[in-house]
């Protein structure tokens, strides 16, 4: 999932302090699972903003809404009828949802209520860790299902580097060395032969360096 983290309430107040009709807009997908932008977090943030305005002696309306997703036209259309009433929208979907909302509601300021962090997993409740950087040419088949692009600090494809120590990465003892994990896993699935081969130069043109990316599929287009 896309993992996001809440922005401090103080920062969000800065964005909207001069508006008097605000919509806090959540998303039912990834950000709900990582407890940063779902219905509950919408309720908490909206409540905080209402208290802020009340304490300032200012009359402001802060409404709450949570859409199924903010990255699809059909769900974003659900606020078409009400969007114009608002002077500001605080979206607590991931950066994708925030932008799509802003694109769709061109004349209303849309502010981010979260920091979008990475693509990752819920290791345990309250702990999310990165697994993928969407490099666009997945090599997991050769690395035992462990991604050196996102999990090795140097993104090296023929690791480990000289800094790998007792299973930890040299940047921090708390971080497991991705290449140690790769070797252990290749051993477990009896594919150490893959480790013996030098990895060819990776095609990075599909990574972010090539500018914004798109996927176009004729087979599913209408």
């Amino acid at each position: 999932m896309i993992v996001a983290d809440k922005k401090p309430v103080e920062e969000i107040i800065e964005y909207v302090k001069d508006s008097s009709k605000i919509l806090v807009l959540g998303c039912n997908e990834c950000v709900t699972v990582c407890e940063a932008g779902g219905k509950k977090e919408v309720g908490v943030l909206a409540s905080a903003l209402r208290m802020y305005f009340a304490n300032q002696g200012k009359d402001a309306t802060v409404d709450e809404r949570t859409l199924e997703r903010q990255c699809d036209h059909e769900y974003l259309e659900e606020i078409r009828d009400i969007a114009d009433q608002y002077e500001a929208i605080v979206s607590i979907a991931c950066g994708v949802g925030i932008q799509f909302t802003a694109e769709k509601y061109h004349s209303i300021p849309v502010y981010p209520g979260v920091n979008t962090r990475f693509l990752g997993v819920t290791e345990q409740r309250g702990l999310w860790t990165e697994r993928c950087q969407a490099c666009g040419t997945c090599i997991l088949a050769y690395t035992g299902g462990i991604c050196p692009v996102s999990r090795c600090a140097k993104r090296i494809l023929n690791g480990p580097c000289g800094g790998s120590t007792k299973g930890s990465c040299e940047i921090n003892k708390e971080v497991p060395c991705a290449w140690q994990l790769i070797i252990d896993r290749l051993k477990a699935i009896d594919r150490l032969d893959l480790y013996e081969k030098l990895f060819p130069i990776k095609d990075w043109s599909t990574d972010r360096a090539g500018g914004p990316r798109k996927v176009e599929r004729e087979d599913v287009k209408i």
Partner: protein
Amino acid sequence: MRLTYPTSVKIVRVPCTGKVDVQHMLRAMEKGADGIYIVGCKEGECHYKYGNLRARRRVEQVQKILNAVGMQSERVQMYNLSSSDAPLFVKYAEEMNDRIKKLGPNPIKARAKSKDQQAA
């Protein structure tokens, strides 16, 4: 034992303090409560294992939010006791009552009230 505690304290019963969410506390403050305190079982003695620890974390979160919006975070507190300890229950109630008296009424209470009247 017939003990009395301040009449300003209104009790909301929940099966476990772990049931109390950040949202419940914020809504109560928003609606004009002068203070909230959660009384849970002693730490390590929760029937559901972590209910009271979760409650403490949530109280801390609410305190942080109150600070952020410029309201006094001391209005929200967490207490722990063993369920049979009535004198301690009274002590906490008195302590909270004194704290709120010192702080004065919830600053947004008047607004919350007039909004309620408008809605009615």
